């Protein structure tokens, strides 16, 4: 203790202070394993290490040979056994086959895009409009518009947001030898696939 006179006038630590330090270190170490318990809070259901089918609303798996050019569908990812969870906006993705001029006629995964449908502005669900002169993602709420190739907002309030909140989270696709499309395991990180409702940095 600071109030106690040091016996020899040197700055050696006293026995009492040493014991106190030991007690403090013990306390810290006792609770250290519980730091990891912070993982109790976030929802782990989104992380997976396996690739999964691109399941269209009719239940079939999307195929590069059959899916129409300049067309889009809302898909669910990750699909749950619970129908209530499948209605979740955060599991809703826009599966787009690009128009011809943007490379949609190629018969491989590069003709497709999957972006989170949750608008980065205030989380309404935007969708892709294939009509002539539009060919872009539009949010019905406040008019944010998204580029279907990159997922970047180019108009409306979402476009005014600073990165990463101006680029939609995406899912990476892979086509097998039969042309069926698979979703690769995502990395939910702003530098990876992005965070739903928050955004992604341009790769």
């Amino acid at each position, binding site marked *: 203790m600071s109030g106690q006179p040091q016996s020899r006038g040197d700055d050696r630590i006293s026995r009492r202070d040493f014991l106190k330090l030991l007690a403090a270190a013990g306390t810290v170490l006792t609770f250290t394993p519980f730091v990891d318990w912070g993982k109790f809070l976030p929802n782990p259901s989104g992380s997976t290490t396996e690739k999964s089918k691109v399941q269209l609303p009719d239940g079939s798996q999307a195929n590069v040979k059959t899916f129409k050019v300049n067309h889009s569908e809302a898909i669910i990812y990750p699909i749950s056994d619970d129908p*209530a*969870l499948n209605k979740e906006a*955060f599991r*809703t993705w826009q599966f787009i086959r690009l128009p011809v001029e943007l490379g949609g006629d190629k018969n491989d995964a590069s003709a497709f895009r999957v972006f989170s449908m949750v608008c980065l502005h205030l989380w*309404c*669900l935007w969708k892709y409009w294939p009509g002539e002169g539009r060919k872009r993602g539009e949010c019905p709420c406040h008019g944010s518009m998204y580029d279907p190739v990159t997922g970047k907002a180019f108009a409306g309030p979402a476009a005014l947001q600073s990165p990463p*909140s101006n680029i939609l989270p995406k899912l990476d696709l892979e086509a097998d030898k039969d042309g069926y499309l698979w979703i690769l395991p995502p990395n939910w990180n702003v530098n990876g696939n992005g965070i739903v409702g928050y955004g992604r940095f341009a790769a």
Partner: protein
Amino acid sequence: MAASLHKENSLVRLFRWIYAGVDRTIFMGLKFTFPTRFVSPLGFLGMLTFVLFIILGISGALLMLWYEPILDRAWDSVENINDTIPYGFHLRNIHYHASNAMVMMAILHMYYQYFSGRYKIRNEILWVTGILIGVLTILEAFTGYDIIFSERAELAISIAASLTNSIPILGPDMRDAFFGSGFHDFVLRFYAFHVFFLPIALIGLMVVHFPRFLVFDVPMVMAITGAIMITGGVFPVDMGLKFDPNVPPGITVPEWYLTGLYAFLRSQYDKFVTGVAWPGLFIFTLLIIPFIDKYKKFSWKDRPLITAIGITSIAQIVVTTYWGFYIDPDRTKSLLDRLVIDPIFLYSVMILLVPLSFGFTYLMIKLAKNAEANAKLQPRKKESVITLPEKWIYFVLIALIAFQIYLNISAYYALLNGMKNISLFIIGIIMLVFAGMFHLYRHGRSIANNPPPPSIPQTERIRALQEKKRALLESNNGKPRLEASDNSLHPIKSNGILDKVLNVARKNKNSFEKMWNKD
């Protein structure tokens, strides 16, 4: 009555035993005052806020029996409560309107303490905990209206979560940790916050916040409860539209205590600055204001700078609250054009309000000081007192009870006929009538305890005194020989009534002054 407390029966002994046991608890440290006459509610707005908290706790606990915090069932369960569960409509409306009333009371309470200067000099902890309670109260109200999961609730949740997201560096992790991911988690967690985390934090802070002197004014509490029910009857809260992610929402505006924030968000300026930094700055200023206020005096008139800051904040709150509500009614314009507020316009109005409020404060203080000076010059006016003869007190009490019986029957019939809001309205009136009755009863009791001096000297005793006086005068050949200090013949002073009345009045005055200063 049979259960007289003057007789020592076993029930009375039980009560005494319990009371003696309670003596060992902290509750005996609190001084509860039940005013014996009408006092201004400004001094006990905090107590009224607490009463509303209790009302919300009870009605909310009952709603918990039927509410389901599940993504696709939340709205339907609220609809079930509203439409089919007996008295569900009543409870939901009481819960909703009491929440608005609680926020309103908390704000009024805060501003009263602010302008009366009671928030400083050893009351800083009360003030700081009070501000935290206020913030949590708004969060509590906010999470409450979100878990209905209507369209408006979904937008509110979106805004809340994306504001959390917008916090630099930690934001996304905080959102993930506190709200989970996706609306399913949001609804469930907002519910958990609403019914447990926030109330428990509120109760903990309230324990610190309670001053030692408390005023519990039964008529005012009943009147507030009645007002809530009447509001629920006249403006029953609607269900909103069930949220469907595929249907674009219409224009919805948040609850009134958040439209100020909403106005800033609508300026389209950076989300973090408008939605987190501005309100954070406001709350921070409120937290530190008692430490900035270095005036030695308490009255708002003697603290011009602090008063001006308070007036500015009120002006800005009022303007932004209204602005948040206002949406361009021109439907030919695009949604975005109608919603977006020009930030330059908004911020210049905010800045313009500062000199205007300072000028207004200066004017008010000048006027108040002038009025004070004038009042000192002029003789004090007598307070006008309504005195109701004892007989009439009984008549009015009986009439009010009869009116209550009538109201009870009509409320019951309204309920039987499915007119839920009318029955809620009438129950509100019953509460108001009870408030009036209690006030009258209290008034009658205080008259009985401190009878006013007899104004008309017609009693036998006084007539006898007058006889005696006349006889004395006559014996002195018409010359009064009485000294001023001799009170024996004065009709009022003689039996000490006046002294008694004066003493009681003085005592009351002292105790009330004490109460005001400590509350």
